[in-house]
């Protein structure tokens, strides 16, 4: 059976991370920005699983479980903040956030 080298998997994870980072800087729609953050979190999880497999240690996969819990809480709070922002500004565009008060 053929094999995939670990650096290929890690490079793939880094690619997804950088796509998410680029999108984070490029986009102004806060929904898409949150999706890019989810992409970055996922790629980090993949690195954890790859290292766990490489080292024969399950701590990486347990960490991924906790990261997923934190990421789910993060996206719930992030979308709550997004709804609060939309109520105030009637917009999901980060360029419209210009005031320090309501």
């Amino acid at each position, binding site marked *: 059976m053929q094999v995939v080298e670990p650096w290929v998997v890690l490079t793939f994870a880094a690619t997804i991370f950088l796509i998410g980072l680029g999108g984070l800087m490029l986009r102004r729609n806060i929904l898409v920005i949150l999706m890019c953050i989810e992409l970055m979190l996922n790629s980090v999880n993949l690195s954890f699983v790859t290292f766990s*497999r490489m080292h*024969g240690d399950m701590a990486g996969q347990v960490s991924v479980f906790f990261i997923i819990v934190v990421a789910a809480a993060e996206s719930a709070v992030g979308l709550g903040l997004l709804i609060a922002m939309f109520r105030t500004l009637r917009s999901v565009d980060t360029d419209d956030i210009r005031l320090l008060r309501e």
Partner: protein
Amino acid sequence: MLSVSPVFFYLFAGLAIACSLLVVFKKNPVSSAFSLVLVFFAFAGIYALLDAHLIAAIQILVYAGAVMVLFVFVIMLLNADAPSLDIARTSAALKVAILAGCLAMLAFFVVAFKRMSPPAPLGPYTAEAVEAAGGNTRVISQLMFSEYVLPFELTSVLLLAAIVAVVAIAMRNAKKPGSAGKEA
């Protein structure tokens, strides 16, 4: 060396990269959201290839299920499915800088990962040892309820804090103008 089928790995990896580019470059947030679902499924496939079966199942349940429902629900709630032309507002110089920066970091990562020395001592949980101990899910569950039981219990506090925070944020603006005398 990971004993992973290259055909399926490159299939899932290509799908994930293509769909994550769509997430960034699609103008409509709904299209971005549904591309993101495909990215999550591709990641679940790669986790399964890497013998992380529990993580693959959780990925589908939590990300492709709960988080995506939350995203789509918010898009529909806010009626924010109008196409946004926000990329066009970024100046060309900034776009080039972002692209160059990302490519430079990717090159750095490739060099770093290729030069990485192989992991010398293999831990106790090799693929064969996990198989002998009753599979990935059983091993992770046993670890989670013995060695990692404190962080596991703390996640319940974290989730409770998140629920309270979301309710507090969502309620704050709702009772601002009209309903007087609610606050003590």
